[in-house]
């Protein structure tokens, strides 16, 4: 059963908090400080729920998603965007279909876990049918 979660955020403390929450829920957490690291881990075989921050330096969330899709790394993953209010959405054109949900920062542990558990269930569901 896939219980893997990846947090992609340039803020170290956000990554650490998500790590603590996931650990408490027995989730396997991968941590990426930006788009390139996220892509590296996907290339290395990561599949699961990706919690992607939008505003990151150099390569933002939308650029990363485009790269994931272009490299054919999207299948087997669920992407949940971590967003603040009013953040620019001009780049989401054509990429929305790859985003399953949006979660507004800051979020509570329950909000995070509810969302992650839900999408993990979805991810695992087809495998159950196989």
């Amino acid at each position, binding site marked *: 059963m896939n219980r893997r979660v990846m947090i992609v*955020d340039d*803020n170290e*403390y*956000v990554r*650490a*908090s*998500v790590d*603590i*929450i996931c650990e*408490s829920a027995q989730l396997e957490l991968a941590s990426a400080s930006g788009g390139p690291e996220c892509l590296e881990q996907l290339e290395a075989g990561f599949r699961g729920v990706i919690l992607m921050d939008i*505003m990151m330096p150099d390569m933002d969330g939308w650029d990363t998603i485009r790269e994931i899709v272009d490299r054919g790394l999207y299948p087997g993953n669920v992407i949940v965007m*971590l967003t*603040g*209010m*009013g*953040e*620019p959405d001009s780049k989401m054109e054509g990429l929305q279909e790859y985003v399953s949900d949006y979660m507004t*920062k*800051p*979020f*509570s*542990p*329950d909000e*995070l876990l509810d969302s992650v558990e839900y999408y993990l269930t979805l991810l695992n569901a087809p495998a159950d049918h196989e």
Partner: protein
Amino acid sequence: MKFLNAARDKISIPLLISALMVAVVMIVGNHLMLDQIHEEAVRQANRQQENSMMAFWEQMNRRGRNFHIEGGRMILGDYYVLNDANELPDKIFCITGSRATIFMGDTRIATNVLKEDGTRAIGTRLTGPAYDAIFKDGIRYRGEANILGAPYFTAYDPIRDLNGKVIGALFVGVKQSEYLARYDRINVKIGAVNGVLAAIFVLCVVILGLNRKRSENAIKRQLNFQQQLMDTIPSPIFSKDEQGRYNLCNKAFQSYVGLSSEQLLGHSVFDLWEPELARKYHEMDQKIIDAPGIQVYESQVGYADGSVRDVIFHKAAVRDDNGVARGLVGVILDITERKAVEQESRRLEAQKHHSRMIESLMVQLNHDLNTPLTPLFALMPLIRAKVSDPGVERMLEICQQCVNQIQGLAGKALDLVRISSSPPRLIPVSLCAAAESALGEMAPALAQRGVICCNAIPPELQVRGSAEQLTLLFKNLLSNAARYAAQNGKVIISAERKGAEVEVSVQDDGIGLDQEQLTRVFDEFYKADAARHDLNTQGLGLAICRRIVANHEGRLWATSPGAGSGTTMFFTLKQAGQQEPAGGPVQIQEESHQI
């Protein structure tokens, strides 16, 4: 007089004077010429008398050489009696056309000079200067003389006897009236020719004058049309002659300078404006005259009404066939409004840019605030779950509240900036749906205090607005109501059509507001007493509401019967479609939401 007036009216004065001068010159010329002819005629008459006299003497000499008086008769030669020898004067008359007389002493003894009764003037006497010349001075006489009351061109020669004594005289002459009849005929002919010439000349002058008048009228009509056309053009137009004097302008130019055409035309800038300004204008005009083509430049001018206008001058020199400047023409284009629009557009663009900058700054700030808040938000519940000490639990709760407040403040500040940055596009939206959407989002907050909310807005009611901002408006009003409504109280949202407007109210049954609070409640960061200590509020909710209502060109106000009696928030919006305003409250369909 009438004729003169008519002539003066139809033919110009210079032309009339020219015609009169030509007439005078012709008369004087005529007179001089006739004088010459007259003088010549007189000379010829005198010459003729000389010849006649010679012929007379020849006739005499044929009959004898000597004269003497014998027995009261004058004898020529030996026997030829001259008394009544009228054949001799008649012969002279036949030969020369001159009358002739033989005097014995001073008495006519043979003559063809006739008396008034038509008989020969035999026996009449010689008088006057001829008599004196012949009988007193003994010399001949040539010239004009009066014979029996009629003027003659005459010649008198004395007849002397053998002793040289003057015993008589010969006379030849021609009546002036007869001789000058030819001259008079010529005079009449010349006069007639001159008269015809004068008549032709006058006719030509009249025709020329009439033609000129016609041309003048045509030019006048053309100038009138031109003036009318120029007066209809709203831009000031003018022209100046080579001395820099205004010679044409339209009404717009007159209003621009505040002077009438009478005051302007024929005057230069030096007559009309201050020396310094006039010199500046003159120098500019000189530049235009020296430069080829049309000169276009922008400037700022003060109109006579005191307004300062932005204008574009279009000026060009007027040149003759040789390219010499004979003046200039100019048009002033008022671009004040265009400038104002451009300036306003630039101002709006700058404002927009500024707003975008603020908004983007706020977004960044919001993000940068939310990022560190995320670990706090995420970790605090985990810490609280692991703490059993009530004191530490209380401290953590306070920390949690503070984090909540920071998060709320960041969100509200961003809301405020976003709704203030640019006016929304107002389209028909369902008011009920906007309220419903807000109710959905605020349900947990309302439920926390057991508040029931009733949305009584008719579902078909549409207003001109932004759905997003109206939802935010309701959210903020409901957030307040949720906070200040009585525990397990009730909030009613209703709407009423009032003319072209819709008046919306959100009524709670909570703590109410006093008079001071009612006036200050919409200020940024203002919190009514009860809320000042509420760490979950930012004092921005109603300020956001005020901005949103202003964006919708509406009004926002609050009423409260007093502390403890609840508060009603009112705001107005424009109805969509502007249908016939229905008086009185609309039929509302109550719909309650149990939260």
